[in-house]
Structures are given as structure tokens and as C-alpha cells.
């Protein structure tokens, strides 16, 4: 690891020594910096994204129809740029991925900034949230807090593969996924595809936490739940190795 690290060491030039000695030096560095990035124009009230409280839209709601329309257009648009269903799912997955990273930061920010932790499902402790170190903690984070943030309720089931050949496989089940229920268009779309977006979100959350994963969505209808979807989470070998080490070390 040491070699690539040192290679990247000086790839940022701006601001590196800012303020390191005398004021006149500092000034010239600021000038240089403003040349590099003059910044964006802001309204006369000077409001930027940094002035907007991150909890402002915390409990805000919008129409489900609006989401369905937007999502439908996103799928239609993606469909025109791909060659097959797998390609389409890959693309939707990729679009969900960065959302997972964002939601992860947002979830943790919210649980640090308020007394009632957004991350704790049962306890009322106000201690700072913990980064998931173990697979099961991570999956609970997804099954509970992430699902609640996105869909207003926890997912319906969380299971571990019973097959000894696939100890790295876990399943998160949603009996009635919103992304499928409200997608009326395009009508020829398999339900499977839309949940690929959510699979991408899950993948982003896992990867962000340092758990290299592949997540796929599978339509597994039952009589009671015709659009029941199972998200199959498959952790990489390195994750499984680390899991063993952490287990032995007693890390929770």
C-alpha cells in the first residue's frame, strides 16, 4: 500500500501550505487559489448548499406519483441506451450506487445531530452512531434505518444463506417494494429491473462502509405478495476473510 500512497501525496497543490508562515505569503496563495477556483455565483442573500440545514427536508413528503413519473422516465431513458435487460439493470444499479453513499452520510449525520438516533432501531441511546464493522451490523443498518429513510418502514426480512457453499450470501426481502408498485410506465418493463436501482443503493451503502459487495434484485412473488422482491447481497472474499479475523478478535 505504501507505494501508491506516496505517489498520490502531492496531487493536490492548492492550499497545501496556506497560512504556513507570513501574511504576505498567505495573500499570494489565496490569490493563486482564487484563480484556480473562483467559485460559483450565489444569490444576493449569499445562500449556498452550506447554509441549508441537512434536516430541513427530513420529514418532508412528496407525491408518490411524482416519484413514479420521474423514475419511469429514468428507466425509459436508460432503456434506450442499453442493449439488453442485464445491461439495463447494470445501468440502474450504477445510478443507485452514489445514492447509497449519500444516504449513508446523511443517516449518520442525522443520528449525530439529534438526540434520538436515526440509526438505533430499538435502543433510545443518544451515543454517537457506530460505523458497521461486521456484516450483521451493516445488514441491520440497511434493513432498518436505510429502508425507513427511503420507504418509511423497515424491510420485511433479513436472512442468511443456508447453503454451506454460499456463506457470503444474505437476503433482504421487501414484500411490496415501492419502486415496483408505483411504476406504471413503461408497461413492458419487468418489475425486476426497477428494483435494480435499489440494489445499487444497497451496494453503495455496503461499499461505502468498506464491504465490497454485489447486490442483485430478484422478483419472487407469492400469492399474497405479487411483487415481492429479494435483494441478494453477496460479499467479496476479502470481506469474508476480514469477518473471520474480526470474529476471532471479538470485534462486534
Amino acid at each position, binding site marked *: *500500500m505504501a507505494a*501508491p*500512497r*506516496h505517489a*498520490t*501525496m*502531492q*496531487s*493536490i497543490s*492548492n*492550499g*497545501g*501550505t*496556506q*497560512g*504556513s*508562515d*507570513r*501574511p*504576505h*505569503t*498567505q495573500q499570494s496563495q489565496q490569490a493563486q*487559489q*482564487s484563480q*484556480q*477556483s473562483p*467559485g*460559483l455565483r*450565489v444569490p444576493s442573500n449569499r445562500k*449556498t*448548499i*452550506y447554509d*441549508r440545514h*441537512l434536516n430541513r427536508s427530513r420529514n418532508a413528503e412528496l407525491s408518490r406519483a411524482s416519484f413514479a413519473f420521474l423514475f419511469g422516465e429514468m428507466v425509459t431513458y436508460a432503456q434506450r441506451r442499453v442493449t439488453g435487460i442485464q445491461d439495463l439493470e447494470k445501468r440502474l444499479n450504477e445510478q443507485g450506487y*452514489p445514492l447509497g*453513499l*449519500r444516504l*449513508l*452520510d*446523511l*443517516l*449518520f*449525520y442525522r443520528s*449525530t*445531530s439529534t438526540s434520538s438516533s436515526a440509526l438505533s432501531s430499538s435502543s433510545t441511546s443518544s451515543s*454517537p*452512531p*457506530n*460505523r*458497521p*464493522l461486521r456484516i450483521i*451490523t451493516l445488514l441491520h443498518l440497511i434493513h432498518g434505518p436505510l429502508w425507513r429513510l427511503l420507504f418509511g418502514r423497515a424491510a420485511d426480512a433479513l436472512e442468511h444463506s443456508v447453503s454451506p457453499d454460499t456463506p457470503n450470501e444474505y437476503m433482504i426481502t421487501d414484500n411490496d417494494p415501492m419502486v415496483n408498485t408505483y411504476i406504471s410506465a413503461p408497461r413492458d418493463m419487468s418489475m425486476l429491473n426497477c428494483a435494480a436501482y435499489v440494489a445499487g443503493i444497497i451496494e453503495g451503502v455496503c461499499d*461505502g*462502509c*468498506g464491504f465490497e459487495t454485489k447486490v442483485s434484485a430478484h422478483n419472487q412473488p407469492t400469492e399474497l405478495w405479487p411483487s415481492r422482491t429479494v435483494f441478494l447481497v453477496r460479499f467479496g472474499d476479502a470481506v469474508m476473510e*476480514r469477518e473471520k479475523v*474480526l470474529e476471532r*478478535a471479538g*470485534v*462486534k
Partner: protein
Amino acid sequence: MAAASKATASSSSTVNGSISTLNNPRLLKMSYYFTILSPTDTPLFNIAFGTSKGGGDGIARFRFPETAQYMNQFIIHSSLDILEEAQWTNSGMYLKHIDTYPPAAAYITAFLTPSGARFLLLHQPPNLPSSTSTGSGLGSSSLLGTAGSTTRASSSSIAANPTSPQTEEAVRQFMSEVYESYVKTAMSPFYKQGMEIKSPVFRTRVTAAGKKWL
């Protein structure tokens, strides 16, 4: 190059710093180098500043100003292996003091975002006037002792001792405030993980957090 004049300038400021330190231990000023690294160790943001608490001017005065940027980055990067170990044993976001680099008397404090960005803060106390105070190796702790007994200890101890509970709490506040701005940056759909953070507003926010807590 302006290297020569720069060196002269900085040595004179070091002298000034030493004199005030000598006269009043509570004015011991820390120099800070703060950096954000992506999960793959790409630097996303850097800033250097100095103590503002207790009447500090907020300007960094590293011990070897000519090489400070290189040294600071070197020291921070050499703490990453320790950080990676701490990352998987301590589930907090704020990992506190993780590493010390004795040759430069540099202390590293770390904060990990859940999405894998690393916030690293290097603290370096100023050069102590070793020629005038003998037994200088222990100088900083004895200075802390003096400061700790005074009523205005809380602000000055941040500057005096990089591993004291007061310092850890102040740094925690600083990190949390930066984290808030970081999340705001990362929430924008145009920000992609690993992109350099160029926003002058972000820089202003980090500077303000440094002024407020350190």
C-alpha cells in the same frame, strides 16, 4: 524562487513565537494541517492553520516551513496503516489521536466518515526554546502542567497538549463541524466520490470551524 526570502521570513516569525512562548506558557500555539482523503487515499482537501483559541492569530508556523507541506503530507500518509487498523477495531467515527511522529513532534487525529472518507488532523506544537530551557524534551508537558492549574486552562491546553481530553473534545467538535459541511458537499448530485473539494465556501467553513474550536 522566493525560497531564500521565505526562509528568512519564517525564521523571524519563529523567533517571535519563541519569545512569547517563553514569556507566557499559555500562549503556546499549535500549528495544524488538516486533510481529507478519499477511501483510496486521494487528497480531496488540504488546509493549514494555527491556534486561534486564547488569543492565537490562526496562522500556522510549522517547524520547517520550507518543507512543511511535503512533511505534513508524508507524516499523514505514514499514519494510514495505523488508521486502517483502528478503522476495524474502533467503530466510532471519531478515532481520536491515532499516531505520533516524534521527529517532527507531530500528532495525528482521525475521523472517518461512514462512506469511507478520512479526515486527518496533524498538530504540531511550536519549537520550544530549547537553548534557554534545559531538559527541553519534557518542556511541553511541564508547560501544560502550569497552564492546567490556571483558571483559563481550557483554551490554552488545546494548544499545549495534543492528546489531552480537552484537546480531543475540541478536535471532535471541529471534526463534527467539518463533517456537516462535507455531507452537504457530498449530497449534491454533481459531487462524485473522490472529487477534489474546491468550493471556497467549504474552505471558509473549515477555517471557521478551526477558529471556533482550535
